[in-house]
């Protein structure tokens, strides 16, 4: 789906969202309020420029528009892969972006992330997975690594990985796996204003300072060891 | 991965700790955990190893160790990533030393 189609479907009441390279930023109207729209498009590789571009805009929202909800649109193939990026501590810029999303939450901004295309590794960690709730469109590709590359790195036969992926959500790519493990709140067949507004609803968003993803993973049956282990550490 | 289970008779160990762990599950290395077992004059050994087909060697190495050291009354668990027999013997001695407080 094209970005403009997604924006039109999410915000029929209007939007002013610009693209700056692969960074997207602007505002949009829901039936009840103005929201900020931020994110990336065309499977962006997140480097310093995009990370700092998003981080700076989040700080502007926090300082200039207290309480304004933030909608993140996620389409990233991961972090930028280059020596120049690493030389200036790319992990530091991604951490900075993550801290800005976290600050917005603490300052009372509800945030929702929607994976519209790809969501991979470091790019996904830095903002998509930092939102209060993360959703994905049905055709979204959420992964760390595809199974062929994983077979190469782990030296486990590709056929074996494919076979195991059928019974375990733990390692294979796919939005439904992230849903059952608690990292995604829901998968949307198509973007609609109703779905987005219900996700942004303050009553739904209440109490989001608590990270409830491992509890969700346990309830959905996709990830039970994590919650169990945390409880054991707390009780030890 | 191969799972191996052995049982050896041995003189009883005198534990100084509730359990002892030695080594790391890294390439060419292994970890060994010694805990109290159910029989005072026997040692049970449970091995998970990345290298298949070395059951006989494991059995010989540990049987030799159990014949020379008091490891009775223990339950030994090993997670192995291709340790050589020399490393296995060294880890067994270290773990037993920690378990018995270095007394034996």
């Amino acid at each position, binding site marked *: 789906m094209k970005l403009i189609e997604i924006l039109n479907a999410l915000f029929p009441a209007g939007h002013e969202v610009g693209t700056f390279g692969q960074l997207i930023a602007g505002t949009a109207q829901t039936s009840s309020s103005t929201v900020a729209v931020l994110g990336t498009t065309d499977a962006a590789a997140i480097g310093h420029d995009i990370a700092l571009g998003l981080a700076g805009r989040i*700080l502007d929202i926090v300082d200039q528009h207290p309480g304004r909800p933030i909608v993140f649109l996620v389409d990233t193939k991961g972090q930028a892969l280059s020596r120049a990026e690493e030389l*200036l501590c790319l992990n530091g810029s991604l951490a900075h972006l993550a801290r800005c999303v*976290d600050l917005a939450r603490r300052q009372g901004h509800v945030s929702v992330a929607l994976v519209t295309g790809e969501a991979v590794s470091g790019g996904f960690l830095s903002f998509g997975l930092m939102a209060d709730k993360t959703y994905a469109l049905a055709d979204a590709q959420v992964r760390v690594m595809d199974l062929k590359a994983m077979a190469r790195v782990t030296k486990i036969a590709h056929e074996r990985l494919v076979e*195991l992926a059928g019974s375990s959500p733990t390692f294979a790519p796919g939005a439904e796996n992230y849903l059952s493990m608690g*990292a995604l709140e829901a998968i949307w067949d198509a973007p609609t204003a109703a779905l987005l507004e219900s996700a942004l609803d303050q009553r739904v968003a209440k109490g989001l300072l608590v990270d409830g993803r*491992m509890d969700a993973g346990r309830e959905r049956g996709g990830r039970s060891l994590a919650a169990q282990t945390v409880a054991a550490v707390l009780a030890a | 991965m191969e799972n191996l289970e052995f049982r050896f008779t041995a003189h009883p160990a005198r534990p100084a700790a509730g359990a002892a*762990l030695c080594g790391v599950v*890294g390439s060419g290395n292994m970890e060994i955990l010694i805990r109290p077992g159910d029989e005072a004059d026997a040692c049970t050994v449970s091995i*998970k190893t990345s290298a298949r087909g070395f059951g006989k060697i494991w059995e010989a190495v540990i049987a030799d160790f159990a014949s020379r050291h008091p490891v009775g009354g223990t339950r030994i668990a090993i*997670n192995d990533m291709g340790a050589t027999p020399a490393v296995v013997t060294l880890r067994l001695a270290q773990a037993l030393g920690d378990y018995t407080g270095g007394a034996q």
Partner: protein
Amino acid sequence: MNAPVHTQLALRHSYFEASARSRVAQLLDAGSFREFLPPEVSQPSPHLAVLGIPGAFDDGVIVGSGQLGGKPVLLIAQEGQFMGGAVGEIHGAKIVGLLRRAIVERPAAVVFMVDSGGVRLHEANAGLIAISEIMRAVLDTRAAGVPVIALVGGSCGAFGGMGIVSRLCSAIVMSEEGRLALSGPEVIETVAGVEEFDSKDRALVWRVTGGKHRYLTGDCAELVEDDAASFRQSTIDLLAGLTEPAPGSSALRTEQKRLTQRRERFAGMRDGLEVWAAMGMARPAEVSLMDRDSLVAAKKGLPA
């Protein structure tokens, strides 16, 4: 062979070569460590067993409490020799649990001995989600007023999501041998070619990701010798002065400005040598030969 057997014989205990358990013993006040979920009550990762790989009882990370310079701390130590210190479901959850415990217990700090390549590919989704949970838990712990100090000096460095996590901590203590980055040089070489990043050129890897470079550019707070006692002393010193202000936009604006200006100042550079020269180091080629104290002194002498 396990390194500690050898290093115990030496006066100096290499932090780089040590196992996580010996690092813990050498960092904390003697005899003060208490492990949560010790090996004898733990099970190796079932996700690895399914793939036919022997797990470790502690799943490659040790968590517990102890005293450091007489102050109570909670502690996390990743074992780089087991699966590259990578984060799987249990491994990650032990870290999250420890950080959440810190919010309740309020120790003087959480000491996080990072030694990890990031996500454990064998448990890729669980690992990625766990790292996201660790990221939020670190920030929650800091927001509750408990500093989190990362120590980076192990053989696997701090890469991938653990590189991000390290930079979310209150401060990083690094040795020259430590490495801190996002993508590993091998990954960049595989995807972008050996001309982009020759992962076998160790000197280059250290000039891009190593402790001295990160110290000069302000991405780690302290540089220490590759020695357990130095990590211990530096962490004790940090503990004395570290406070956690309530999260606010002014600190992040300062960081935004620093990162943005740096991006402009060092644009197009691909080697630490270029950056150090641009910073005003008189003889950048000598940085790799300088000992820790000389480098710290040289940094103090740089123009602002």
